[in-house]
């Protein structure tokens, strides 16, 4: 579109919006009517017209986990295999509830750790590497191939009791115990667990952002 035609189209749109407003001048201002100062919509009809009157759709929005698989792409294949086996061992299916693997926990944790701060990534990466190294030393094979009994021998010495915010100081014990807690949380909070449901899912009062700021970045500044 040539510039002159474009300008003409803008003018036409603005004229028709004004005309429409003029017809309604006597009526109270409705939210579905664009305010006079707003940029004109690129068409003869105001964009928001009619939305206020629409009835809610008879639909339940689908959550991704109910039909889709998480693409795991953070851990190396060997780390991923160790995490998968760790999930099988630490939280198997019990009492009719899905185990960690059924709940998609290995893939979810791959995602969660991939977007976590570096120290958290290091905790998991070095922890899974250490788990594989310990397995190789004891069994001559990575952790993924450990039997339940062999896995127990590798894990049991590192299990601790601990209180929130104060995981064990030893780095490997820290990893084993935090990973155990994370695997449980990711599984028990999963949709699969909820649907197995004799127990009520972990519902809570969710707060939307309250009148949030857009956090505009001022020139010459870091992230505000």
């Amino acid at each position: 579109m040539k510039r002159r035609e474009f300008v003409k189209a803008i003018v036409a749109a603005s004229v028709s919006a004004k005309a429409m407003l003029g017809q309604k001048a006597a009526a109270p201002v409705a939210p579905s009517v664009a305010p006079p100062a707003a940029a004109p919509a690129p068409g003869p009809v105001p964009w928001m017209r009619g939305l206020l009157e629409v009835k809610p759709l008879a639909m339940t929005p689908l959550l991704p986990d109910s039909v889709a698989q998480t693409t795991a792409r953070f851990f190396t294949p060997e780390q991923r295999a160790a995490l998968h086996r760790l999930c099988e061992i630490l939280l198997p299916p019990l009492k009719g509830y899905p185990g960690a693997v059924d709940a998609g926990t290995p893939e979810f944790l791959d995602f969660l750790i991939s977007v976590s701060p570096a120290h958290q990534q290091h905790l998991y990466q070095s922890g899974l590497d250490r788990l594989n190294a310990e397995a190789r030393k004891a069994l001559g094979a990575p952790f993924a191939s450990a039997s339940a009994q062999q896995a127990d021998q590798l894990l049991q010495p590192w299990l601790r009791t601990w209180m929130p915010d104060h995981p064990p100081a030893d780095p490997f014990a820290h990893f084993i115990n935090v990973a155990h807690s994370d695997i449980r949380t990711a599984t028990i909070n999963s949709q699969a667990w909820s649907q197995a449901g004799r127990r009520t899912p972990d519902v809570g009062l969710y707060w939307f952002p309250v009148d949030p700021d857009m956090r505009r970045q001022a020139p010459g500044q870091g992230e505000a």
Partner: protein
Amino acid sequence: MMADKTVDVLIIGSGHSGGMAAKVLTEKGISCLMLNAGPIADMHKDTEVKPAYALPFRGFKQPGRLAHVFQSNEFNANTWVDEEEVPYTYDPQHPYNWVRVRLFGGRSLFWSRQSFRLSDYEFKGKSHDGYGDDWPISLADLAPFYARVEEIFRVRGHADHLPQYPDGNFVPDDSPWSGCMQRFRAAGETLGIPVCKPRSSMGVDGLASSINLLLPDAFATGKLQAMPNVVVRELRTDPRTGLINEVHFVERLSRRELSVKARVVVLAAGTLESTRLLLNSGLGNSSGVMGHYLIDQVYGPGIVCSVPEARDGRSTPQLMGGGALVPRFRNLDRKAPNFLRGYALNVYSSTGSMDPRNFAAYGQALENKLDSYKGSGFSTGIMGEVLARYEHHVRIDKNVVDAWNIPALHIETRYTDNEINMARDAVDTSIAMAEAAGFEVLSKNYEPNPPGYSIHELGTCRMGDNPKTSVLNKWCQSHDIKNLFVVDGSSFVSGGWQNPTMTIVALAMRASEHLGEQMRQGSV
């Protein structure tokens, strides 16, 4: 607001202290304008009950966000101040958890409601043990105000007649002790440690906030106007009088710069925000102690136990449930070997499921433990005094600004041997009492949470009679600037172990009555 109009009293902050100032002053007929940095929350619009699986991170905290707010989770993350939006700095070796809420009503919207008076072991600590400084007031000065505050907040409690746990104007708590609490009390008795009923604000309809207990009365007078979403940047003085006459602020969303003239300013932005504003304004610090003597309280150390008789489906309401409070018992008559002052213990009994972290087990074995131990939980947690020290301080970090270009605070504090030794004693004493009561100790933690975690930051504008060693006088009024009052927790000289809310609100009430009288006489 009309331009060129001078406000009688401008109140900065809408939490418990600002709310009390507004109530007292407007009820005396004084017009007030309240500024608040954040928006007004509307539960109907801003919240929704959701299962964890419907949240983006399955109920995990969004990684990297609110790293210093241990209290945050994915459900409530949007209620806290984002530390990227309002940053602060610290030595990475000595982090500080600055936990803030800027919604209208501030942190009075979310608090544990434990409601205590300070005793003269706190007000007159130096006279008792030689450390630090006495407050310029005593319990007798504040007691009448405590009594009125307790009535407004409907504090439920039991009179125990202990000097370190002063009684108040209580809604009487004569509820019976559960069996496990009776056993814990008996264990305390053999060790000479009192185990008392907790004390907490019932408020109205379960809420004890400035927005339901204080501000409605203020608005009902017709004398209070309030403006949300404005971030105060600077207070300015009239060079002829040295008095504050102008308050400059920024509209939160638009960044429009505005100012308003005021006859008196009452700062109630919360301890560290009030101090930050004064430091950024370069006002009220002829003593040089502003920003110094930052204190809080030690939280985190404690134990988790199981009551054996309550396991395997035998937990009953007679045996389990309820809470207790062990008020300070160290350094009252006898000196503890390796620390000054003291701590209290929060004591809880749980009839629900146990935290799996209390068992070094997994899979089926862990499930068996959780089933067996359900309803048998018993725990203690420290609330410990942190000594006021000059070197524990805040200052302006000129290299970092917040989202409104306001210079950030640098916080420099750490726990010393006194706090570490106190925490160790609290855990060891908890274990001794629990074992004497026949409980199985499952887990323990000696390590304090980072300073600030308790959300009880206090001091940095401490009060005193001497203008050379204190920022405020005993009426929370600046020694330097007569029309400046600071009514939040920054006036504290020492912190004690007590949740400071009742003391903050009582001090705000006392300061505001004094201010009202001074205004009536024309001396402010």
